[in-house]
């Protein structure tokens, strides 16, 4: 009975993990849409980012360059 439970929980865990799908570079069409950006104004983003990294003392890491195509 306990063995069955262990196998069942392992299977359940694996099914949950299968749900963790990596979006492949060629599937990023929807992510690259302009409406997917936090702020549609690029200058506003630059301004926010500048304030952010000045405060944090570290730059980069906010979003991806080139519209989410994974090319930069």
């Amino acid at each position, binding site marked *: 009975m*306990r*063995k069955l*439970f*262990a*196998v069942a*929980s*392992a*299977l359940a*865990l*694996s099914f949950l*993990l*299968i749900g963790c799908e990596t979006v*492949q*570079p*060629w*599937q*990023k*069409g929807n992510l*690259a*849409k302009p409406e997917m950006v936090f702020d549609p104004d690029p200058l506003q983003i630059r301004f926010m980012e500048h304030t952010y990294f000045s405060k944090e003392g570290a730059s980069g890491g906010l979003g991806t360059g*080139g*519209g989410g*195509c*994974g*090319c*930069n």
Partner: protein
Amino acid sequence: MVSRSFAIGLIVSALAVSISSATAQEVGSRAPSFDLTGTVKPVRFADFKGRVVYVDFWASWCAPCKQSFPWMNEMQAKYGPRGFSVVGINVDQKREDADKFLTGTPANFLVAYDTTGKVAEVYQPKGMPTSFLIGADGKVRAVHVGFKDSNREQLEREIQAALAAVRK
């Protein structure tokens, strides 16, 4: 006993996950074949036998792809007669998106549509665009991710080297 069966279950599922993910194409490996619909007629990998092929994965939503098109047109015109073909594989899920892109950015090379991503699944491009330079022997000679104007010279040299290798 319980932990052992748990471990076996995990190993089995880990194997199942690893089988589903294909390995990327590397330099020196045999380029996988493809058969896709093109703008006019089907684009088949087998049709390029004995030619140097530049397979470029692109998408309408990718800005550097737009930059690469004039260069690929130039390369096709310059080296096409010497046994070189550019094949642009579009990975948009909707063909209309690709066609809209092509009206603004004309392609004077073969364009194929991989709307389901089945060829991309096999080639595993790391970003958009990714190009695979395939020698006349059918082996991958170079893989290049992204496109910048500063890449032009290096890429052209690789094409020249691939063409020089054919004549030997």
